[in-house]
């Protein structure tokens, strides 16, 4: 049997597939989020040092994880699109960027909300906070570059190149910020030395991370469907779709 690997690489065939996939991922996200929130707010014990305020990590840590994962996935799609000249891959990269930026912002906001009771300041120039902030700048640069180029093919390829340059730079930026931080601050604040987490806390965090992941997939698929319709508006299959919707 010969498998056609590229069957779903054309927008025409992927559009209905994405429609079928969205509810699955959305429901998975909802179920996992309810389970994760139940565990993190009801079952997880109160921390003896940090009280109830620590519970924000059940949103903060998964959001920070997702912000990094999405950047890598986005760059991978972008690179694939650049290498194979595949339209759909570039559309996926474009669809992922806003979600990644939102998770980065969420991680920053929840981080500073957590920092106020823990460290007594809304913002500290901690290595992780700073590199997360720079990650937000990288996302914004990608989105700004893509939206300021009118020709979609050129926007795809320029954005892809920028994402790849960013991926090469992310480790350099991360380590430079880390060394900068250790030079300037000493070890007054060290999140790495936090007490070992209880198993329920870890479970809650993992469930929330999975929920965020499924949400990301669902939202990216929704967004990519809109992008497909917008870009392919003059293609026959889109016209057929809109005619079918009218009749």
């Amino acid at each position, binding site marked *: 049997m010969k498998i056609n690997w590229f069957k779903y690489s054309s927008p025409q065939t992927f559009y209905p597939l994405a429609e079928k996939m969205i509810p699955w991922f959305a429901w998975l996200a909802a179920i996992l989020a309810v389970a994760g929130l139940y565990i993190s707010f009801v079952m997880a014990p109160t921390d003896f040092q940090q009280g109830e305020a620590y519970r924000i990590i059940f949103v903060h840590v998964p959001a920070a994880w997702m912000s990094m994962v999405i950047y890598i996935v986005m760059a991978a799609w972008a690179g694939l699109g650049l290498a194979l000249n595949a339209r759909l891959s570039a559309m996926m990269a474009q669809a992922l960027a806003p979600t990644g930026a939102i998770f980065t912002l969420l991680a920053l906001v929840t981080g500073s909300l957590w920092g106020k009771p823990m460290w007594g300041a809304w913002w500290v120039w901690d290595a992780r906070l700073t590199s997360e902030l*720079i990650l937000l*700048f*990288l996302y*914004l*640069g990608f989105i*700004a*570059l893509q939206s*300021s*180029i009118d020709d979609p093919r*050129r926007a795809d*390829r*320029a954005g892809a*190149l*920028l994402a*790849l*340059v*960013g991926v*090469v*730079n992310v480790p*350099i*930026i991360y380590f*430079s*910020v880390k*060394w*900068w931080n250790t*030079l300037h601050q000493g070890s007054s604040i060290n999140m790495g030395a936090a007490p070992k987490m209880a198993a329920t806390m870890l479970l809650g965090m993992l469930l929330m991370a999975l929920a965020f992941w499924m949400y990301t997939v669902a939202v990216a698929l929704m967004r990519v469907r809109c992008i497909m319709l917008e870009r392919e508006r003059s293609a026959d299959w889109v016209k057929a779709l809109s005619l079918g919707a009218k009749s």
Partner: protein
Amino acid sequence: MNDAWLIILKRDLLLAFRRRSDVATTLFFFLIVSSLFPLGVGPEVAVLSSIAPGVLWVAALLAGMISLNRLFAADFTDGSLEQMLIAPQPLALLVLAKILAHWLVCGLPVVLLAPLIGLQYALPNDALLVLVWSLLLGTPTLSLIGAIGAALTLGVRGSGLLVALLVLPLYIPVLIFGAGAVAASQHGMSAQAHLSLLAACSLLSLVLAPLATAAALRISVE
């Protein structure tokens, strides 16, 4: 191959020499930005010398950035960029010549002017020397990475601000190591680790950035 490389370098230097005010603009920008800080912060010597490494490096970063738009724009409008794209020589090499010319015109003067401003900030002598070394090793990276941004935003509306958004986050490691080197020597420590890292950044971007810039130019011009 070498000929084409040299010809482009000479041509760009000659063009810059004929339009001397362009070079002066970058230099004056650097001068003005670094003179604003004492006015804003106050003239206390202790404060000034403690902020000097960061201020001078940020000013150098911004001065390098505002001149990026000129890197390819003129060649793009008069069509000579297209000739470079279809030339038999590897585009990355020709691009490297343009970047080198840009650094000689916009980077090197800043390196040479910096110790003078460092004096105004009451930097001690050995810190001044480290400042020059760090700028000498670091500013080529700025031109190399900046070229990618300049190539990506070629002919795009609002490219001046866009290039800042794309390039400045990528400049952060150079800023950290460069300002760190000067600060280390101010505190009586060895600046060698920082300088080595700066040199490593320069070498890495020397290899990768011309290739990425060439790819970006092909995307932008096609």
